[in-house]
Each structure stands twice: as C-alpha cells, then as structure tokens.
C-alpha cells in the first residue's frame, strides 16, 4: 500500500480503526525489557496455547498484542485488557486460564492480580487510576504499551505518519524548522541544545550533502528510555527523522543503536522495511523531490560512542574517539558534512509537535524547558519503571507520587540523575523543579533521563566510587586528564572506602577534579568527576566519617563495618548455613555469635535473618 496523498493515509487509517473496533477485547501483553526479563514470553505462549485449544469466537490469538514497555516494570509481567484498561500485574502462565475465562468471557475482574496502592493498600482496577500513570503526560512514549511495534497498521491507526504527510504536502522546510523552534524542544540526550536552532544552522550550511543521525546509543547504567522507544514505537523515531531530514535537506540518515539492544535493532529494521514499502522512505517520497534512506548503524556498546563526535567516527567505521568540537558538527560532522544529531526521544517528540503545533508543545512544561521528559525511574522506590512527566515537576512528585515512595519503609537519602556523569541530590532538593537548568544549577544534570533513587542504606562514597569505576572503564583514554585523572580519582575514592585516606587525599581529589573538568577533551571527561563532586558537596560528612572515624554510615564499605548479632536473635540457626566461611556459631534457641576474625562481611547472614537480629556497625 503506497501512501501518496493525505487522502490515501486517511482511508488506510479508517480501515485500520474499523478493524480494531470490530474486535471485542484486546489483550495487551507487555514485551518491554522489564517484562521480558520477568517472563512475559511464557505468559504470551500460554495465551496462544489456550486460545488455540478453546477456539473462542470473539477472541483469537489476533486479539493478543505484544507491545513495547507499558511502564510499570516493577510489577511485570503486565497484562492489560483493552478497551477497559483492566490492569493485571505479576501475571504468571498459571493465571492465563483465569484471565480468559473470568475476565474475557465472563467480564469479571480478578482481584488478586490487580495493582495494590502502596499508600492505601487498596486494589486499583484500571491503570489510568493508578498514581503511577495518572501523574504522567506522555508525548514521546504516547504509543508505548498500546501498539504492536512490528505492525505499521497499528501505528497508522494511532495517527502515525500524518505528520510526515502534512509536512510533505503543505509545509516548506523553513516552516518545519519554525514550528520546531516555536515548540522550544531541547535535545533530550542530555545537552539540552534547542533542536530548532540546530536544524536551522545545519540547513544554512552550504555543502554537497547533509546528514541526519539519531543517537540510540543509550549507555547509562539503569537507563532504558530510548531502548523502550526504539523497541516499542520504532515508527515514531523514523517519522521524526524523516521530518528532520526534510527540514535540513538530508538524503541519508543513520540510526546508531547499540548491538546490545537486539530487539530494538530487529524492530527498527522491520519498521524501515515497512515504511519503504509504503513509499514513506526511499526515492521521491509521496511524489515529491524529497528522497531519503535511513540506515541502521550498529555500535559495539562503548559508552563514549554516545558522545556525538565519537558516534560519527563510529558510524564512519573508525574507532569511536571524540574530537575537539571547535568546529561544530552541524557545520562539519559525519564525513565532514553538516550533520544534525538528536537522540531517540527528541525525534519521537517531533511528529506530535508537527501534528498539534509548536504552541501546544510549549504550553506543557516550563518556559525554559518545554514539553515532557522521559525517565527510567529505578532504585529503591516501590514503582520502578518507565515514566514521562512534564518539565518543571518536582523530584518529590516523581519519587513519592509516581514512584510510590521508598521501598520497605526506609528513608530517602539521595537521587542520582543524569547517568554516570550526573550527580546525586539530597533531600533538600526534593522540591526542586526537574528541568535542564535547575538540575545543572543544583550540581547534577538532566542527562538522557536515568533516575536512580537511593535510601539510607546507601553509602554515598561507595556510589561515587561505583560511577567513577564505570567512567574509568568507559573512558576512551585519548586525553591525559580523563584517562589518568579519572583513574587516580577512582583510586583515591577506593582509598576512602577502605578507610585509608587522609584529609589531604580529599583535598587532592577536589583539586584533581577541578582540572579534569577544565582539561578534558569531551563531555565524558568534563563531567567525569561529577559523581565525586556532587557527593562531596552534599554528603561531605560521610566522606569525613570514612576518613576521620573510619566508619561507613551507610553500612556498605566492607573494610569499615562489622556484623554483630543482637539479642533479638531467636537462635533459629538460619544464618549459620549461608555463611561461606563458617564464622557463625550457635545452638538452637541460643543467641548466635559471629567470629569477627573469620567474617568476610559478605552480608549473607544479614540478608537471611528474619528477626532483625543482625546489626551493621
């Protein structure tokens, strides 16, 4: 089916919608990264098996839809019954029979599978009534959890490709750039550079050809926003890229996606193939002069290749090392041609901006940071998952309303935003607005949208050490401050966690950090000391506790803690077996004792004790 006019698209869309309306129910099985890990494939297989067997009239396997990430990964595998929106959590293959018989056939809701609100302990039937979803505004993630990423008809039914059709039939490239500029859309990859300005500069550069690149090299530990979009709604990314390519005058575009995201790669290839078949990619799109090919460029998974200049080198087949950007890549980028590089989420926003207008987008969020931002909310919160919130929301709303608060009744300690090179913010910043400028001012950054919540059992020095280690491993090593400096900074952080550091070492760490920031070549090095700088800024007393008192307040650093058994011990013998070094002795119903000389502080006893009888000191 070739789309060559707005009329054709509308007809096709109407047909898709009609088909959809004919089905009684749709059973959505979330195939996002979280649910895949917790076993949604088995759940889907069970649906297939039972439906095959039962041969129901209204419901066939066609009604069971595999979608991208629905959001609430913590409670996966998720199954949603549409159109009602009945939301089943932690579904096991054993539940499938009940779902079909009770809910689908008899219209009864299965109570035990419903989401339980952590605050009220009440079961909630429909997902739109859950705080986690209620407080979100979804633009980039609009189709996630609703459409089958492998089916272009699903995307068309959701209004897909209408922006491309609108752009190609009624807007000039300048008008497209103008609309994006009005929207105030800023790059979602972390830098926050205004997308409209970038596109306009690139368009103005006189060159043989222009390129558009989509950065899908999401490498932050604990971040999966871009992955989820590429896996769950690949056409939205393509549509954004087509519009951008039209605006800047590009003939070829590249999606750089890491090989570790096999499902994203697979879905992107399929989406490109389908879009080509519909004439939305390739030669003379919709009968205009505009032609575009989108290529998938698969990366090897080096974190530094998320940096734009390193990424372009990698696309061109060289070793992914950054270069100095005194000449910007919008002027001289891929193969020395003017290049627009935006990340997945930025492109996914573009079709909606074209459809609904820049003014609409601008009305969401705050003046300097418009629209929404997707985050992967992870760590010690009740509801981990993928969220999208309007800019200007507070950290408190994200963590306590959407996230449902801290797990297991513990106390909030810090939230880490911006990935490894971001920073940790303490409780005093909970009411801070979440936008590009406020987070930077607070000493962290927006980054691509990883958000890791930490509770009072976290050691901030250990957190800094962890992220520094990540950066030491991922630095390309081209320049001295980043390669040698981060290595030495990490060594000093290890020294602190071992209780061997002095206050002079801490002063040296601060001085070294200052010069790594000034001296490094690319963003990785320039923001490399951030994990240390932000923790020492807000949690200096923890560093001093390690240095002066040789204590770890979080109870994490092995060299500085001891495990001791208190009088809550019931003598149940449970901790004796898991101890790998046989350091615990004791008899039944008598308080056990840990031999400190043998104890390796592995924490196995602490994990197994059900009576709170083990103290970390």
């Amino acid at each position, binding site marked *: 089916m070739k789309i060559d006019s707005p009329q054709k698209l509308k007809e096709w869309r109407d047909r898709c919608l009609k088909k959809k309306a004919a089905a009684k129910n749709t059973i959505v099985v979330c195939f996002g990264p979280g649910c895949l890990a917790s076993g949604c494939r088995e759940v889907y297989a069970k649906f297939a098996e039972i439906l095959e067997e039962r041969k129901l009239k209204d419901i066939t396997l066609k009604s069971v839809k595999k979608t991208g990430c629905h959001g609430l990964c913590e409670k996966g595998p998720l199954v949603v019954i549409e159109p009602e929106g009945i939301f089943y959590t932690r579904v096991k293959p054993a539940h499938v029979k009940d779902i079909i018989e009770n809910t689908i056939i008899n219209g009864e809701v299965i109570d035990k599978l419903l989401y339980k609100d952590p605050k009220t302990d009440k079961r909630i039937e429909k997902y739109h009534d859950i705080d986690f979803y209620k407080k979100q505004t979804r633009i980039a993630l609009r189709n996630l959890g609703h459409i089958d990423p492998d089916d272009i008809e699903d995307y068309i039914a959701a209004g897909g490709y209408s922006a491309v059709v609108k752009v190609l039939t009624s807007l000039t490239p300048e008008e497209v750039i103008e609309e994006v500029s009005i929207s105030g859309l800023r790059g979602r990859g972390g830098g926050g550079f205004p997308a409209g300005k970038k596109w306009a500069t690139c368009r103005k550069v006189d060159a043989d050809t222009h390129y558009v690149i989509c950065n899908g090299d999401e490498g932050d530990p604990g971040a999966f926003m871009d992955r989820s979009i590429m896996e769950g709604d690949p056409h939205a990314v393509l549509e954004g890229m087509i519009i951008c390519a039209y605006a800047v005058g590009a003939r070829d575009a590249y999606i750089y996606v890491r090989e570790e995201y096999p499902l994203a790669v697979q879905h992107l290839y399929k989406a490109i193939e389908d879009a080509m078949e519909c004439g939305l990619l390739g030669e003379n799109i919709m009968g205009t002069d505009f032609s575009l090919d989108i290529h998938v460029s698969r990366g090897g998974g080096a974190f530094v290749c998320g940096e734009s200049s390193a990424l372009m080198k990698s696309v061109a087949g060289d070793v992914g090392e950054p270069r100095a950007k005194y000449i910007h890549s919008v002027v001289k980028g891929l193969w020395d041609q003017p290049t627009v590089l935006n990340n997945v989420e930025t492109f996914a926003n573009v079709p909606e901006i074209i459809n609904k207008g820049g003014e609409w987008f601008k009305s969401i969020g705050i003046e300097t940071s418009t629209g929404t931002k997707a985050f992967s909310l992870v760590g010690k919160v009740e509801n981990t998952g993928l969220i999208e919130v309007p800019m200007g929301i507070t950290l408190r709303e994200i963590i306590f309303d959407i996230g449902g608060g801290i797990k297991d009744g513990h106390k909030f300690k810090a939230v880490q935003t911006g990935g490894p090179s971001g920073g940790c913010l303490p409780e005093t910043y909970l009411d801070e607005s979440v936008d590009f400028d406020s987070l930077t001012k607070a000493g962290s950054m927006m980054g691509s949208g990883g958000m890791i919540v930490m509770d009072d059992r976290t050691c901030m020095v250990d957190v800094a050490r962890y992220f520094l280690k990540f950066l030491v491993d991922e630095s390309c*090593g081209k320049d001295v401050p980043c390669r040698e400096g981060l290595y030495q900074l990490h060594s000093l952080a290890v020294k602190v966690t071992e209780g061997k550091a002095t206050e002079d070492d801490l002063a040296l760490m601060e001085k070294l950090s200052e*010069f790594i920031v000034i001296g490094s070549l690319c963003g990785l090095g320039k923001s490399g000391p951030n994990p240390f700088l932000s923790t020492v800024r807000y949690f200096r007393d923890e560093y001093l506790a390690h240095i002066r008192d040789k204590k770890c307040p979080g109870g994490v650093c092995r060299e500085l803690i001891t495990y001791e058994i208190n009088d809550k011990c019931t003598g149940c013998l449970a901790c004796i077996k898991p101890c790998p070094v046989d350091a615990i002795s004791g008899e039944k119903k008598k308080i056990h004792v840990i031999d400190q000389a043998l104890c390796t502080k592995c924490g196995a006893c602490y994990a197994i004790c059900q009576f709170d009888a083990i103290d970390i000191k």
Partner: protein
Amino acid sequence: MKIQINGRWYKAFEGEMVLDVLRREKIDVPALCAHEAVEPFGSCRLCMVEITHENWGGWKGNVTSCLYPVEDKLRVTTHTPKINELRKMILNLLLARCPNAPEIQKLAEEYGVTITDFVPRPDADDCILCGLCTRVCAEMGFYAISIVGRGYGREVGTPLNEAPPDCTGCLACVNICPTHCIKYEDVGNVRKIWDREFELVPCKRCGKTIITREFADRLIKDKNLPEDYFDLCDDCKRDDIAKNMSKLVIWQDKKEEVKR
C-alpha cells in the same frame, strides 16, 4: 589576519591553528602530542591557552591551541594562573604514568613538579600515549601499528599483538616519539623493530646501509622513483653530484679559454 598573543600582535594565516603561530613566533608553550608532520590530535592538553575576542562580550575560554583555528583579532594568553595550574596537574599525572621518562621529569620540573602526588604506575614504561607514532604510521599510509584498548588500559600495539605485516621498518615512529620509548636495533644489515626483522639495503659503492628493502620497494612503487634510486647512499650520491659539477666547471673554464 592578525592575532594578539600575550598583548603583542602577530601575523596569522587562514587555516592555521593557534599553536602553529605560537611555534613560528617561538612563544614557549609545552605540547607533547603536536608535531608538524601530522594532523593535530589534542591528547596531551598541555598546549591549552586562554582565548577571547573583542566581539565575544568579555567571554573567555580555555582551548587546546593545537586544534583551535586562528581568526582575526583573536586574543590569546598562554600562561594564566589557571592554565599553569592545569599544566602542573597534567604533568603531575604524567609523572605518575611515566615516572622514569627524562623528558617528562624535565618538563615537570620546569613547572615546579618534582614528585608526583599520585601512586605511580607499577612496571611503568615511558609511553605517554600521545599517539604520534600511530598517527605518523597511519598518515604515511602504512597503518602497521595502532592504539589498542581503551581508557587506562590503552596502549600502542600491533594487530593481534603479532609482528605487524604492514610495517616497513621505516623508523618514523621511533623518530617522532617524544619520550624515545620505541626501541629498535640495527645489527649488520638487519634491523629489528616491532618483533620483525628487515633487510637493510647497502650502498653499492661504500657498503653503508641506507634503508630497509621493504621501505625502499614501497617508496619506489608509491612515489614512482627510478628503480636504482636507492643503489647509492646520500653521501655517495652527493659525491657524484660534486664530480659532475666539477666537470661542468672545467668545461666552462675551457670555453672561456677558447673565447680568449
């Protein structure tokens, strides 16, 4: 165009980098990874300078001079307190990496760093990973050696850590290395480098060795040189030229005689 360096104006040319001007004007700025034979790279960060411009509304920035293109009326300061501190820190780090490299020790001392604050690398060699060797090899078209690994584990190496098949034994890497840490050996008419042995071509007249056979063949082929180009060493060639010149002089003398 003109640029201002430390308060004085100097001539600069389109396409030049700031470091090119600094070096031409003999203004002392340390740089370990920049060499006129290869493209700038920006890895040592020692050549950082502060720049500003009358049109920038007072904005100042620190940039690597080897990579920053000159523009008219650019104002450069080569030794601000901050940049001096940065250079000190970099040398401090380099001393931890290469505690035994005399060139690094000397430069560090110039900046007042005699001992590193950090833990020196165990079993340290003198390689500072400036990449000059690998870049000169690549720019000559050989790509025999390259940077392997990343981060702190980065090193200069050969493909699969084996003797590099594309090496011609030309010694460009040896000669460009700022810390002289690439080792080679010429014994008789055999050169040993990068785990390989090369035959050295002797001069057909005096017997002195000139160049490796592989490098000679490669140059003759790539540069369209005559087959016998490397038959004689430079000294013997010069000798021949001198002889021919003297013949010419004698002949001219004779011509003068005839005229008279």
